[in-house]
């Protein structure tokens, strides 16, 4: 079983559309994250959730909204997509009590045309 899984893996859409990326982890972790990786491979933290509470929001536009229906899921919804949103989005999770490791999904490549 894949520890952290994201869907879809590839997403191509037009500017102005709304899209969602789903993430699920089966590791029993308490904290989940969304990272954005741009074309230069730079990783930027977007959000993290613990026990359904948002604990990090790094100046991300409010067009991006994370939604966590339960501890195992953290979905990313994006409204009014812009060209600059094209990137690879990674979901990750970690364990409270801290083993010191982030577990990443395989990424979702978003292309906005």
């Amino acid at each position: 079983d894949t520890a952290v899984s994201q869907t879809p893996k590839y997403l191509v859409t037009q500017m102005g559309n709304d899209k969602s990326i789903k993430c699920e982890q089966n590791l029993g972790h308490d904290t989940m994250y969304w990272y954005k990786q741009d074309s230069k491979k730079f990783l930027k933290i977007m959000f993290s959730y613990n026990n359904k509470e948002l604990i990090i929001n790094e100046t991300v536009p409010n067009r991006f909204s994370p939604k966590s229906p339960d501890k195992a899921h953290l979905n990313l919804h994006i409204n009014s997509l812009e060209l600059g949103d094209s990137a690879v989005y990674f979901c990750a999770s970690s364990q409270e009590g801290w083993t010191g490791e982030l577990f990443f999904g395989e990424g979702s490549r978003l292309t906005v045309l």
Partner: protein
Amino acid sequence: AQSVTQLDSQVPVFEEAPVELRCNYSSSVSVYLFWYVQYPNQGLQLLLKYLSGSTLVKGINGFEAEFNKSQTSFHLRKPSVHISDTAEYFCAVSDRYLGNTGNQFYFGTGTSLTVIP
């Protein structure tokens, strides 16, 4: 907040040669250090980590790293690289444990290692 600097954006090296990928971080009272590897079209996976104890840390695939507190560095090394080591390598730092509210990680900008046959 921490900052992580990976000085080399691209490192070409011949197969079976040694390699060192450099990582420096901003100073803090205590830090936890990581190296992650990203193979093409994949997510990141942990190579090794330093939490405490011995400053020389061994990881998967023959990689090792040395924590140097005085130089605030955590350089990654491998004595003999293989073609399959071609990937993007990220250094990461976490400087606090936020209790039950999760952890904060800071990533460097990555080093692209290309192993030449």
